[in-house]
């Protein structure tokens, strides 16, 4: 176990008026439970506004949760439990252990820093090397590790294409030998022909460096490809979670089913989008519906769905869904 979250909530206040009074909250995460185990990839999938990025940022402590509890198991078998902020004592180590790759490779690299500076910074902050020559060797190694040439270290980000920049982000993320990398849609800004290169590189690093990923994406097929376990989110809540094969072969939640049907099939002979009968749009996270978050669009909606939030119900081993359809006696 690396990290575990219990009933994580994240509300962003909406400020209004000249005195900036709080006029409401964007409820980005609503009582989310999750855990990430060593050497696995947890895929988190959902549409925009479902809270997947917020959750990734809570894990990296870019955001502090509004309530709930995080539990971090350090490699030295220490356990840190904290509700909002990581205690200062462990924070620096925590930052070193948990790294992040961002979605947009054009805004996540400082345009005024050379690639060498970008890779040097984390090493200096954490005082890894006393000897500058060793440090430079390591930077060369990092660049070759992600498939770039060593002399790129003196160049600036604007000289690189999107795919190459994403490789640089990855080199920066692995520089401190982290235990967990939060990947926030690392391929979605890239061209189709370049996406597979990055996916392959991520898989290679995982196998060779025993990496663990918290892999965020809107692309179900990609998440399936990458992950041992999958979490499907909608409007700040977990709808379904489990082994990725179980979730795909034995899909339980009506929302996951719709999501699967909505992926265009690459076969002009069987156009399958015709079968998608989903009406309406996701409700606003400022004013989410009472009960199940999906009840406004669900075709199986029952009375209880409109009043009570369904808990995660076990469907089979390592496979749960938050839907009243699976509760016996309802």
């Amino acid at each position, binding site marked *: 176990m690396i990290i575990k979250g219990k009933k994580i909530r994240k509300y962003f206040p909406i400020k209004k008026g000249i005195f900036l009074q709080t006029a409401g909250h964007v409820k980005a995460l609503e009582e989310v439970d999750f855990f990430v185990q060593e050497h696995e990839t947890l895929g988190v999938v959902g*549409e*925009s506004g479902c809270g997947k990025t917020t959750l990734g940022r809570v894990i990296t402590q870019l955001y502090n949760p509004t309530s709930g509890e995080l539990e971090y198991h350090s490699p030295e078998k220490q356990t840190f439990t904290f509700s909002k902020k990581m205690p200062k004592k462990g924070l620096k180590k925590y930052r070193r252990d948990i790294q992040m790759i961002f979605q947009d490779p054009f805004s996540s690299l400082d345009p005024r820093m050379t690639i060498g500076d970008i890779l040097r910074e984390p090493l200096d902050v954490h005082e890894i090397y006393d000897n500058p020559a060793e440090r430079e060797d390591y930077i060369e190694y990092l660049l070759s590790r992600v498939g770039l040439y060593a002399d790129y270290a003196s160049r600036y980000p604007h000289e690189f*294409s*999107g*795919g*190459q920049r994403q490789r640089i982000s990855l080199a920066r993320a692995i520089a401190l030998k982290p235990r967990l990398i939060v990947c926030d849609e690392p391929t979605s800004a890239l*061209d*189709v*022909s*370049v*996406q*597979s*290169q990055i*996916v*392959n590189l991520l*898989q290679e690093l995982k196998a060779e460096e025993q990496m663990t990923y918290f892999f965020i994406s*809107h692309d*179900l*097929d*990609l998440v*399936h*490809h*990458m992950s041992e376990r999958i979490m499907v989110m909608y409007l700040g809540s977990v709808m379904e979670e489990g082994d*990725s*094969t179980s979730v*795909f072969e034995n899909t339980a939640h009506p929302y996951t089913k*719709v*999501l699967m*049907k*909505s*992926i*265009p*099939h*690459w*076969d*002009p*002979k069987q*156009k*399958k*989008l*015709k079968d*998608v009968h*989903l009406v*309406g*749009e*996701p409700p606003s996270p400022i004013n989410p519906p009472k009960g199940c978050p999906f009840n406004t669009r669900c075709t199986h909606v029952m009375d209880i769905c409109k009043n009570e939030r369904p808990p995660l119900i076990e469907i089979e081993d390592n496979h749960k869904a938050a839907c009243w359809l699976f509760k016996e006696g309802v």
Partner: protein
Amino acid sequence: MSIIDVKHLKTHFKTEEGIVKAVDDVSFELRDQEILAIVGESGCGKSVTVQSIMGLLKTPPAIIRGSIKYRNEELVGMPLKKYYRIRGREIGMIFQEPMSAFDPLYTVGDQAAEAVSQHFTESKTTIRKKIIEMFDKVGIPEAEKRYDEYPHQMSGGMLQRMMIALTLSCDPNVLIADEPTTALDVTIQAQVLNVMRDLQRETGTAIIFITHDLGVVAELADRVHVMYAGKVVEKADSIELFDNPKHPYTKGLLASRLKRELKGQELPYIKGTVPRAFEFPAGCRFHPRCPNKMAICESKMPQPILLQNGHEVSCWLYNGADES
């Protein structure tokens, strides 16, 4: 019957870094009542091609050569006044970003009415009725109420459907859609694509659909043109293209699809990256990335070759030989 006929279109831009040959000798036709998909990655010239058709490029810096015929009328060099009559009325266009395609200061209804009143001399109330009817058709709930609301009150999917309604209320013969669903979530994309297909069936409007997503192509298109680095490299019927791709680039794109059976395994990929527009390589522009590269590919540009089933490909592999 072709409704738009593009012949040897070259759209170049003069920039400080040199001449950018965004579209370089592209020929194709759009037939009556069909959905033609133009697919390619960023920088392949697909958007510039349709912007040239719509006359949306400022000349200079753009230099447009060749011919674009809409029903025997030449669009290249057409005076602006005449263009106004065709743009919107005969050829409509939908853009990628619904949020920035609408003016935030006017209600969506007013903006739709303005577009319609450019081309029709009907009374305000008739136009209003017509637009509300169209909103209804594309699945906008409470269309009457929505007519008087502002763009920020809508979601992206709803605005994109309104954009489709707005464009189709002028009853154009051709609809150009430039990545209309790229900014939308998959479930919303499914809704928008379904609306587009149903309306196309009903009205018979011919559509040029631009996308980078081969899944969307498979769902919607009758015929497909694949573009790479300013050139059309392959043309075929949709089913033929997916069953029997010819160009190494198309093959690479199709192979990079994620297959459930191959979970976790190494994905096939196209090496290298898309070249930048002012440094296209000599010869075949795909040759630095091509797994089947031959000596001739480095020096001479391949010309389109017609194979069986109306399949056309620009690749030296097929020169002279019919089948591979």
